[in-house]
């Protein structure tokens, strides 16, 4: 078998094996050490909880709420991040004068603002969307900014030699060469947007999967909490894969996509 075939098959062997291994180890540890199943439930109990959970209508309602929050927050972050990133990338003096502010707002623990968001935007959807958007905004914006600045000089000269206008250079060159950066920011952003929505739900309101986690915890149902965490991870995975698939579709020419498809080992 060729090395490239091997490389393609490898994840499909390694990942399931690892999952099985972890589940078995989990089971063995919990049963042999006689841990209280209320504190650390064995895999079988979690599985039962997961099946029950997926059978409940309100779970799916909660999934709908959380995914809506994530998607709205993420969309806002992408649009705002793209616009702000492009403007800051192109207008150097603006970026320079705002840099301290950007750094501060970037390192500030934004999750700490949730109580304020609840006061301002209420217990409903809006406060979660705001946190979700805020968390996803920075990676998108910073990557776009980097992308605008990373246009190859040689490519610029090509546009110059063809007498391209500023608008043409922007559309045909700058917007194109920042795409890989935008997608890199989006891949980080979608994960943070999911975290933002869930943390928002933890801390305020009575909707969404985050809220289900809180009520499972309040009733000391560790198995159900585990099951919800698994469900949340699966949702996060699906959202990430959608962004990743979009990247493959929109920038098939880029190393990160093309190189993977054509590894020769």
């Amino acid at each position: 078998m060729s090395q490239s075939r091997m490389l393609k098959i490898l994840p499909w062997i390694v990942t399931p094996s690892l999952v099985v291994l972890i589940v078995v180890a989990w089971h063995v540890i919990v049963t042999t050490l006689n841990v209280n199943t209320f504190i650390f439930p064995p895999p079988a109990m979690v599985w039962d909880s997961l099946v029950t959970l997926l059978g409940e209508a309100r779970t799916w309602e909660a999934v709908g709420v959380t995914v809506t929050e994530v998607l709205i927050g993420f969309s806002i972050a992408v649009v705002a991040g793209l616009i702000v990133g492009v403007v800051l990338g192109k207008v150097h003096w603006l970026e320079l004068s705002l840099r301290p502010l950007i750094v501060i707002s970037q390192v500030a623990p934004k999750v700490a603002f949730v109580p304020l968001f609840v006061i301002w935007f209420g217990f409903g959807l809006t406060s979660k969307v705001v946190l979700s958007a805020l968390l996803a905004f920075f990676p998108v914006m910073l990557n776009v900014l980097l992308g605008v600045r990373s246009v190859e000089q040689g490519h610029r000269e090509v546009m110059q030699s063809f007498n391209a206008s500023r608008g043409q250079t922007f559309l045909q060159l700058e917007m194109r060469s920042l795409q890989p950066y935008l997608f890199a920011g989006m891949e980080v952003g979608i994960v943070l947007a999911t975290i933002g929505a869930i943390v928002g739900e933890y801390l305020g309101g009575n909707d969404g999967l985050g809220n289900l986690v809180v009520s499972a915890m309040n009733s000391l149902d560790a198995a159900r909490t585990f099951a919800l965490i698994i469900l949340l991870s699966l949702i996060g995975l699906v959202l990430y894969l959608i962004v990743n698939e979009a990247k493959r579709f929109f920038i098939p020419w880029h190393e990160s996509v093309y190189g993977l498809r054509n590894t020769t080992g």
Partner: protein
Amino acid sequence: MLTPTIETSEAGTETPRLEIKGVGRDFHTKAGVTHAVSGIDLTIQRGEFVALIGRSGCGKTTLLRMIGGLLAPTAGTIEVDGKSLWRENNHVDSSAITKLGFVFQESNLFPWFSVLDNIALPLKLRGVGKKERRARAADLADLVGLSGFERSYPRELSGGMRQRAAIARALSTEPELLLMDEPFGALDALTRERMNLELQRIVLETTSTVVFVTHDIPEAVFLADRVVHMTPRPGRIRQILPADFPKPRAVDLQTTPEFNDIVRSLRHDLDEEE
């Protein structure tokens, strides 16, 4: 739109395609001032093929970039068809730029466009409709021997194929003046020879004027009507040697004594630089 620009000359008193007078360029860096190019006088007639040779760092690229409207001279004037290329405040005359085609040392193709879209890009920028520009780009791909690769991405091409795509792109606007900066620098000797023949054929077919930078003396003599030899610090023209062999030229030309006399004399002069 590819509207033909009105020639300022009338028949009889033909203005040269390119007139370079006293052109110089200084660079101010932390280390001080570099006189990259100084006091260049060169007149190039329509349809002429001029090769620029000289040691690394003698200012060939700098000169070509000034002719191509990419870098403003700090002294002298450059006229394309009798019209000044550089205006005050280092602004470039865009009507002159539309007559030029630039082939860079690296192919500089856009990785997000297919070969066809890369070749068609200059036409797109001029507002040529999609159907027409694609048809013309396909013709050009054929001209440079890339038919069958129209839909490939640049990364799927070899270095020589990329360079040919870049040449096709430069040709797409039917430039009257083609500027080429070591376009075949990265190619092996055999591919290079084939590219030289192809370039000659294309230039004869399109009757363009060419300024061609190279390190390779036989390549310069083989392709050019005149070989301009530049010396460094500051970059100046040391001599201009005619190489008037009938065109089209065949590879055999390189074994004739006349050809080798010119090559030897140029090599001798290049060696003489301290």
